[in-house]
C-alpha cells in the first residue's frame, strides 16, 4: 500500500507527480536541495489547484487538505520512511547513480526506488545499490497532469514484487501503466524516434522543406503537430542530447543515429521556441 510517497527533485516533473499524488490522497514528502525551488513548486501546485477549482474539477474545500498533504524537505533522511521514492532529478547517470546509492542506504528496505528517467538505463542506475531488485523506472510524460501514460521499466534485476507495486501505484495516480524492458529509449521514445530522424533526413536530402513535411504529417498522417514543430517545442539541444544518449547506449545502432542538422542547429543557438528560432522563426510571437 502506498501511504507515503517521497519525491526527489521539485522540478516540473517532480512537482506534477507530487500534485497527482496529493490529489490521490497520498502523503507526499517533496525533497530538493534548494528551498527556493521547493517554494516555487508549492506555489505552482497551488495555482494549478485553483485552476481546477475554477474549472469545477476540484471541490473548493479540498484545496487546503491537498496542499497540506505535501511536505517539503531539504534533508534526504527525512523521506527515508516512505513506501516509494520517485527520483526526478537531472538526466545525468553519475548523479542518479550516486543518489540511488544513497537512497538504498537511507530508506526502509521494503521501499520501492523509482526513477523517472526518459533515456537512461534503469539497470545502470541500480548498479551501485545493494538491493537492485527494488529499483524500477517510472517514466511519466510531460505534462504529467494530462498525459496518462507511464512506462514502468523493469531493470535487469528488478523483481516481480517491485514491478507489481509500481503498476498498482501508477494506477492509483490515475495513469495507464505499460511494462517495458530496460532498453535505450524504452518504447515510446524509441519508436517515435524514426519519425524525427527520417524527417531530418528528408530535409537533409532536399526531398521537402520542414514546413512541407510538417504539413504532410499533419494533414495526411493526422498528427496534431509535425516533427519539426515538435522538435522546436522540445528544444533542439534537448532532442540532440536524447538522441545522442540513445545512440551511445545502443553502441551505435544505425537506426538510432542522430542527424548532423540537429547538432549544427544546437551549436548555432537555433534551439527552437526557447531561443525564438529553430526550424521556424518565432521572433514575431515574442
Amino acid at each position, binding site marked *: 500500500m502506498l501511504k507515503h510517497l517521497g519525491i526527489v527533485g521539485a522540478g516540473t516533473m517532480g512537482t506534477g507527480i507530487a500534485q497527482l499524488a496529493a490529489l490521490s490522497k497520498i502523503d507526499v514528502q517533496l525533497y530538493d536541495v534548494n528551498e527556493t525551488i521547493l517554494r516555487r513548486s508549492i506555489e505552482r501546485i497551488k495555482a494549478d489547484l485553483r485552476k481546477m477549482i475554477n474549472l469545477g474539477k476540484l471541490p473548493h474545500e479540498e484545496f487546503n487538505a491537498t496542499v497540506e498533504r505535501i511536505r517539503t524537505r531539504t534533508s534526504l533522511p527525512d523521506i527515508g520512511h516512505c513506501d516509494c521514492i520517485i527520483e526526478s532529478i537531472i538526466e545525468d547517470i553519475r548523479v542518479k547513480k550516486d543518489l540511488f546509492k544513497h537512497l538504498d542506504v537511507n530508506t526502509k528496505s521494503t521501499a520501492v526506488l523509482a526513477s523517472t528517467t526518459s533515456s537512461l538505463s534503469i539497470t545502470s542506475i541500480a548498479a551501485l545499490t545493494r538491493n537492485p531488485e527494488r529499483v524500477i523506472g517510472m517514466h511519466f510524460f510531460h505534462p504529467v497532469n494530462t498525459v496518462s501514460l507511464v512506462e514502468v521499466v523493469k531493470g535487469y534485476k528488478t523483481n516481480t514484487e517491485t514491478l507489481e507495486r509500481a503498476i498498482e501505484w501508477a494506477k492509483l495516480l490515475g495513469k495507464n501503466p505499460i511494462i517495458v524492458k530496460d532498453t535505450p529509449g524504452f518504447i515510446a521514445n524509441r519508436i517515435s524516434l524514426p519519425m524525427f530522424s527520417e524527417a531530418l533526413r528528408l530535409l537533409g536530402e532536399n526531398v521537402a522543406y520542414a*514546413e512541407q513535411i510538417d504539413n504532410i504529417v499533419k494533414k495526411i498522417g493526422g498528427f496534431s503537430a509535425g516533427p519539426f514543430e515538435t522538435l522546436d517545442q522540445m528544444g533542439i539541444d534537448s532532442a540532440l542530447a536524447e538522441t545522442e544518449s540513445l545512440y551511445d547506449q545502443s553502441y551505435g545502432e544505425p537506426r538510432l543515429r542522430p542527424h548532423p542538422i540537429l547538432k549544427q542547429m544546437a551549436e548555432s543557438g537555433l534551439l527552437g521556441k526557447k531561443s525564438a528560432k529553430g526550424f521556424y522563426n518565432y521572433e514575431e510571437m515574442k
Partner: protein
Amino acid sequence: MKRNKKKPEKNTKTTAKVTKTSSKSTKKEIPKTPSLLTEKHELQKAEVPRSQESCQSDKALVYVVGEAPMVEQYAELCIAHGYDVCISWNEPPSEKQNTLSPGIIISSTVPENTSIAIELTNIDVLAKKKNLEKLAKALPETAPILSSSITITATEQCAWIVGKYRLVGIAALPTFIDKLLVEVAPTIYTPMETLEVVSRFFLTIGKEIEIVQDRVGMVLPRILCRVINEAAFAITEDIAAPDDIDKALTLGMHFPLGPIEWAEQIGLDQVYAVLTALYTDLQEERYRIAPILKQMAMTGVWWKQSLAH
C-alpha cells in the same frame, strides 16, 4: 509565425497551385508539348447526366487501375466529385465488387475518352509496368497519368512509357486516400502544363497538393513505415507487448494511431513493399527490415510468436 529562410534550393513549395518546376530538361526531352487541357478534355464536372452503362458520357472520365483497396477508394472519391470512373484491379477483390457505388464501371480496357489515369500499384512492380505501358498506349496524348511512386520513383517509371511528360508521381497508400492533401512528385520530364492539370484535378476532388522531390518513399510513407519497422524490432526484442506499444505511442506521443494498428490498416504487404524499396534504394543498414515484419507480410499472420519462443 514567420518561417525561417532555411530552405532547400531545388524544391518547390505549393499548396494546390504550381509555383515552379524544373523544366530545362523537360523542354529538351519534349520537342512539342501537347496542350494537355483542350476544351474537350477539360477536367470539370459536367452537368449532363452520366451513362450508367458505359464509360461514354460528357463528364470527364478517370481510369483507375492497380491494387485494392486503393483503386476502390480513389474511384469512390472521383465519382463522389462528379467524374465518370472506370476501374481495373491487378487482382480483383471479389468481395469488394458488390459494394462499389453505382456508376463505377469495371473495365480492363482503357476507354479512349479517358481524361486522366491513376495507377495505384506499390507491391507488384511488373504489374505496374504492364499497367503503365497499357495506359500510355491507350490514352489520348492529352491525358496525364498519376502513378503511385513510393516504391519506385516516377522518373524511373517514365522509362517504361512513351509520352514521359504525362506521368506524375503521387504518394498512394491505403489510409491516405480520403485525406485532404496528397504528395505529388513531378519527374525530370514533367512540364508545367501537366502539373497544372494535376493540381486542378486534385482540387476538383477536394485535395490540396504538396509538391515534393521524386524519391522512393516520398515523405509520409517513408516516415510511417520506418516507425512501423521500429515497432516490429521492439516486438522482436520483446521490449513491450504489441498492444502496449500502440498504447505508448497514442497516449504518450500523441500518435493518431498506434504503429501496429496503422500497419494493419495500411496492410503489411504494402508496408513491406515500401521498406524493401527504401532498403534497396538507400542501401543503408538503418532501413533493414525487421525479420518478424517480413515473415508476417509473407504469411499474413499478425504478431504471433512461433512455438520456439
